[in-house]
C-alpha cells in the first residue's frame, strides 16, 4: 500500500497531506489523553504500535504470485478506537519513508490516509457491526483485523486510479487495474492477519482481562459465567462509561 515517493502529482500529494493532518493531530491528542488519564494503558498502547510495526515490515507471498504486507492497524482500533492508530500508523510510515525508501514524504499524506485512517476506521466499523449483530469478541476481532487490512489496500488502489486515470477507460478502468494488483493479492493476507488477531486476543483475554474490561472490549465477568443478561455492554459501554477508571491495573 506504499505509494512510492514522487508518484503522486503535487496537487494530490498536498491534498492528501492536508486531508490526513487533522486526523493525525487528533490522534496524537488521543494518545496523550489516554496515557495521562490511564497510565496503565501504556503497555497495551505499546503493543498496538508494536503490532503494526512488525506486521508492516513483513512481506508475505500470496496465491496471486505477488507478495504484500499486512497492516496490523486493527488491534489498536479495537482496543483504543481508531484515532490512536492515526498517530501510531504515521510513525510506522515515517520510519519506512525515511529509512527504507518505502513510501515517501510526498506520498506520506496519502499513505497515512489509507493505512492509518481508513483502515482503522473500517476495521472498527466491522468490529462494532459484528458485536451489534451478536457476534462474539473473537469473530469481531477477526473481522476488524481483516477488514482494516483490505480497506487500506482498496483505498491505495483508488488513490492511484484517481491520480493516474487510464488514457481510455479513465478512473474506473485504472481502478480495476490497481485493485487487480492490490486487493486480490491482499485477500489471503487479510485472512491471515485476522487469524493472527484472534491468536493475540486469546492471549490478551486471559492475561489482560482488567485492561480489556476497562476498555469495554470484555464484559466484567459476574460470578457465574452463565449470566449473559449484561451482554449489551459490548462495544457500547465505552461510550456510556468513559470515565470508569476502576478495575485497571492494580
Amino acid at each position, binding site marked *: *500500500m506504499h505509494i*512510492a515517493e514522487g*508518484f503522486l502529482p*503535487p496537487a494530490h500529494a498536498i491534498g492528501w497531506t492536508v486531508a490526513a493532518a487533522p486526523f493525525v493531530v487528533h490522534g496524537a491528542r488521543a494518545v496523550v489523553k489516554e496515557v495521562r488519564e490511564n497510565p496503565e494503558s501504556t503497555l497495551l498502547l505499546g503493543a498496538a504500535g508494536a503490532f503494526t510495526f512488525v506486521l508492516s515490515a513483513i512481506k508475505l507471498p*500470496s*496465491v496471486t504470485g*505477488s507478495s504484500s504486507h499486512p497492516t496490523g492497524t486493527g488491534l489498536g482500533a479495537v482496543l483504543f478506537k481508531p484515532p490512536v492508530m492515526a498517530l501510531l500508523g504515521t510513525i510506522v510510515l515515517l520510519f519506512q519513508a525515511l529509512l527504507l525508501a518505502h513510501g515517501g514524504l510526498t506520498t506520506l499524506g496519502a499513505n497515512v490516509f489509507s493505512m492509518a485512517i481508513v483502515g482503522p476506521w473500517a476495521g472498527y466499523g466491522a468490529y462494532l457491526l459484528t458485536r451489534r449483530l451478536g457476534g462474539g469478541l473473537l469473530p469481531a476481532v477477526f473481522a476488524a483485523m481483516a477488514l482494516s487490512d483490505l480497506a487500506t489496500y482498496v483505498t491505495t488502489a483508488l488513490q492511484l486510479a484517481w491520480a493516474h486515470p487510464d488514457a481510455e477507460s479513465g478512473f474506473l478502468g485504472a481502478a480495476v487495474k490497481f485493485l487487480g494488483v492490490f486487493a486480490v493479492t491482499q485477500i489471503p493476507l487479510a485472512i491471515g492477519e485476522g487469524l493472527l488477531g484472534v*491468536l493475540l486476543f486469546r492471549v490478551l483475554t486471559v492475561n489482560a482481562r482488567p485492561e480489556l474490561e476497562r476498555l469495554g472490549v470484555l464484559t466484567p465477568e459476574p460470578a457465574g459465567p452463565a449470566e449473559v443478561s449484561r451482554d449489551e455492554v459490548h462495544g457500547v459501554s465505552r461510550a456510556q462509561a468513559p470515565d470508569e477508571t476502576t478495575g485497571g491495573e492494580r
Partner: protein
Amino acid sequence: MRRRHLVTALLVLAVVALFALPLLIDGGSDYTGTDSQATELIEESDPGYTPWFSSVFSPGSAEVESGLFALQAALGGGVLGYVLGRLRGRRSAEKAAGKTTQPEEAGGP
C-alpha cells in the same frame, strides 16, 4: 484447557499454511511486491509521468534494505513480546499470591 491448546495450535497452523501454500503450489512466480507492481503499472499506463521527488535516503543495497526491514520487525516483535511477557508475568504473580494466602486462611485455627 487441552482444547484451548488445540485451538491455538490449529490457528497457528492455519496462518503458516496460508502463506506456505502459495509457495508450494506455484513454482514460477517471483513474488514481486504489490507496491513495485503498482509503480510499474503507472510507468506503463502513464509514460508521460515523471516522479518529481526522490527518497531522501535509500538503502545502498538489497542487503542493507532487508537488514533495516528486519530491524523494524525486531523492534515491533521485541516490544510486543515484552508487553505480553509482562502481562503474563503479572497474572502468574497474582495466581501465586492467591495460592499462598489461601492455605494460611485454611490452616488458621
